[in-house]
């Protein structure tokens, strides 16, 4: 999008960062308390790495497409 307007990628960054943070936090809670959800392959702790990936991707979009920055 053009400068002066918030890019769609920024909105995506906001959403991915929030989701990533929430899911990772839950995954870490599972990891450290040992209270895992009743799902298959829970031992792989998917919320930690999948949530972490989403968080990092979200942060990348947040920074790269933050309002006011020429993209």
């Amino acid at each position, binding site marked *: 999008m053009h400068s002066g307007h918030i890019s769609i990628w920024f909105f995506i960054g*906001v959403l991915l960062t929030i989701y990533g943070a929430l899911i990772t936090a839950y995954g870490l809670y599972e990891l450290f308390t040992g209270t895992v959800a009743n799902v298959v392959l829970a031992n792989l702790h998917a919320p930690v790495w999948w949530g972490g990936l989403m968080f990092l991707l979200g942060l990348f979009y947040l920074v790269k497409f933050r309002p006011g920055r020429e993209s």
Partner: protein
Amino acid sequence: MFGLLPDLPAAVSASVKGMAFALSAPSLAHLSGLDIAVIAIYFVMVIWIGFYLKGQANTSEEFFMAGREMTAWIAGLSFVSANLGSLELMGWAGSAYQYGILAAHWYWVGAIPAMLFLGIVMMPFYYVCKTHSVPGYLKLRYGQGASFVAAVSFAFMTVLMSGVNMFAMAVVMKVVLGWDLNFSIIVSSLAVAAYVALGGLRSAIFNEVLQFMLIWGGALLVPILGLIEAGGWSGFKAKLAANIAKGAIPSGDYTHMWRSMGHFTDNPMGIHWTGIVFGLGFAISFGYWTTDFLVVQRVLAANNLRSARMAPVIGSFFKMAVPFIVILPGLLGLVVLQNPDGSLMHLVPQNLVTPGSGLHSYNEVLPLMLVRYCSPGLLGLGITALIAGFMSGMAGNVSAFSAVWTYDIYQPLIVKNAKDEHYVAVGRWATILGVVVSIGTAYLVMSMAGIMDYVQALFSFFISPLLGVVLVGMFWKRATKEGGFWGLLLGTLTSIGLWAWVKVDPSALRYVAISPDAKDMAENMYRALWSVIVSMGVNVIVSLFTTPRPLAELSGVVYGATKIPEEEPVPFYKNEFFWLVIAIIVFVALNVYFW
């Protein structure tokens, strides 16, 4: 968008209707507080986007065409996302469980050639003539008659489809989560009405891109974990072969796409390769991807001709990847899904799922896989992706309806020379009206589930003949106004006639699909093919006997009479032809690998 032919298996057309039988069964999943927070955050986000974009939807060009400011990436993702509805995802995953990898034909040969053709060959004409819609293109090429027929049928069908989508979402949310039908309909319609009426096409496009990211974020984990559990692709094939040997699942070739296409009886879909290539790959796929305004509108919003050409090429890569989050989970379900007692779970046709049976249908394979692997938060993300898919399906229909109603019906026929603000206001009200009619349709479908089959068929009547008329008009200078009108009309009547013939006398399928062994899906493909042939043939014959328009009047709309603007040179990696070649190579490689 639910109901469009390239992504519509027979299984899907019956799915919602059939799922209604399961409404009294216990829900598949139970959401935690974290899941509900994930869903709520999505709704806050879409309303925020709608309010934010309101300030950028003040002129008609901004409201209906998103200001023609979309980059190739945004237009491309929106283009492919407009076709990535949740019911298609669930239906095709179910078809993959039932028929194997044959279902991927709808994503590869049934989409990629048409998308690339639109981008490279057709887009320059749509873009150079600055039309606001496909009916608008027909008006420039053939005059008001053909345009009016196309506009009215399209406007009518979009609001119907939006209502079907709304009802489908309500049923799926009821079956998967146990939510009340009315609650789902009201919440989804209010959210869609708010963000499309506020931000117009730009808002719809933003939400489609958002939905695209959510679908990948929410669904990609399922095949990854499924493959880990199955022991990789080779482990999956070994387990599949063992299950077939034990008689645990029906025998058949689940992992090859073309080997069983030699005869109608060699594959469970009852289709011959000619039907797949010419019916699906040409008549249906080209009709949908190149002339359905709902998807073409996204590309028309591109910021320049190169972006408009590039957008479908970019979209084609993601379309080729969709089977990995749709078809693969369906296939993996054949070997990993288990009953609570540890035995292999058998999914069944929808009509066998009755209250108390404890059975699940093919169409539930994707939610079942989500529930199998996704812990709190991730499950909410997967459910949010499904909700986003349904809502953007509705939004896509409503925004396209609003544009066609305002530009192709209201402006030329009702109020011709009003101020621009007037048409923006009409567009906003048309959006709200579209949502209200959609709600009515949703409740109509709820009371008469059988009506869905007719809605599906109705839509299919118009798409393929429109392709015939647009193609002849775009590439043959001699085509006339009368040829276009009669081609569209008789092509549509051919499609209706063949459908009615098979409906009244099912044995007529042997003539329509050229084989007594053909099944329902083959009928759709051959019916589409015949209607394109008739619409093109009639157009050509009538045009030869009527007076063509002077060449000067065809500039911008016909090949040979249009000067395509020269594009600035760019590095090879930004050139659409480079990516076209890569897309073709990947497309061929995928088909060869899964031959």
